[in-house]
């Protein structure tokens, strides 16, 4: 058994962690697992970043407050929070 880091990328509508989540990607610390678009998914696991925090996730990266503003040539959807959970995994 070893403590490993689970990673959850949640993009929110604003820098407010209570604003609605726009997208989500979960990365498990297990070799061979993948994280990809799931065509059967009809909702995200968490409505907001705050919901994820209430479920035990810890924010390790807060979004840059520079978003897509007038004049930007490249647009990025949402403001991305990165969260972690440290859990025991079998090696």
């Amino acid at each position: 058994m070893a403590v490993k880091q689970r990673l959850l990328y949640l993009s929110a509508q604003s820098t407010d962690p209570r604003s609605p989540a726009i997208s989500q990607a979960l990365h498990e610390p297990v070799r061979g697992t993948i994280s990809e678009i799931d065509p059967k998914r009809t909702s995200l696991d968490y409505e907001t970043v705050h919901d994820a925090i209430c479920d035990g996730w810890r924010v390790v990266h807060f979004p840059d407050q520079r978003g897509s503003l007038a004049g930007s040539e490249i647009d990025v959807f949402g403001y991305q929070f990165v969260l972690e959970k440290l859990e025991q995994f079998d090696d």
Partner: protein
Amino acid sequence: MTSSTGISVGNLLTDDQVADFVINGYHIVEPQFPADFHSKVYSELELLLMNPGDEINKAIPKIDQVYEHPAVTGALASLLGSDYTRAAHRHCHKNHPGTRSQAWHQDSLNIPTLDDGHGRISDHVQSVLVMYYPQHVASNMGPTALIPGSHLFTAAGDRNASHGNFRDQIVAVVPAGSVLILHYDIWHAGTANTSDQIRYMVKYLFERASESTEPSWNHDSENDAHIFERLERDEAALIQRSLVSKRNYRRTTMWNNLAGNAGLKYEYRDKWSGEWPQPNG
């Protein structure tokens, strides 16, 4: 009844359908063919020993019939003008069982004389991707996923690589013979095929040949106020508020570029009058 260009008026899109395309970036057509038409196309695809690339239409001439069906040509004429052209590029995507999902991306022909490899046009419909599925596509057969409204924004695939699943993503779970018309710049991805069946998708590219001088669809100027409101209010996928003004501007400009001299004209109106907010329950 046919238009002056020979396209049946009954197959042209309505104002609301064109607005749907401007807002969401896609339109689905289900052209009617004999019951076994698409299964025959599928069987012929199965016999191809190599990828014919642009010459998929020569390898299987039946496929051209799909793109020449009045329901398809009517939609294309509505979005690109009746003198639209078929581009040289075509491609058959063969999605085997076990294929993993693609990452979200905008297509590009990787043209070396353009600094972004393609030339994004976020406020017009200059070209469309037209995807034909010769078999029913179930959710486990690698359906095409897309983000409604994303055609209005320029993406960098590597910056979007950590998004994963979007709350408002759409997947094209469609019956055999469906034709999905996409704005060229929409963010999309083929998804994982976890079934035991190959999923084919044939893609053609169509382009605008001339600028519009008038709407090329079934337009009624009586709908202008309704369309203006839809372009301003309708949600596609949830985005940050700082992008909403850009989104609405590009929607309106796109509509006006399509409508030529029948474009929408902005007039101030009071959007805030009405009932007082109610106390929180």
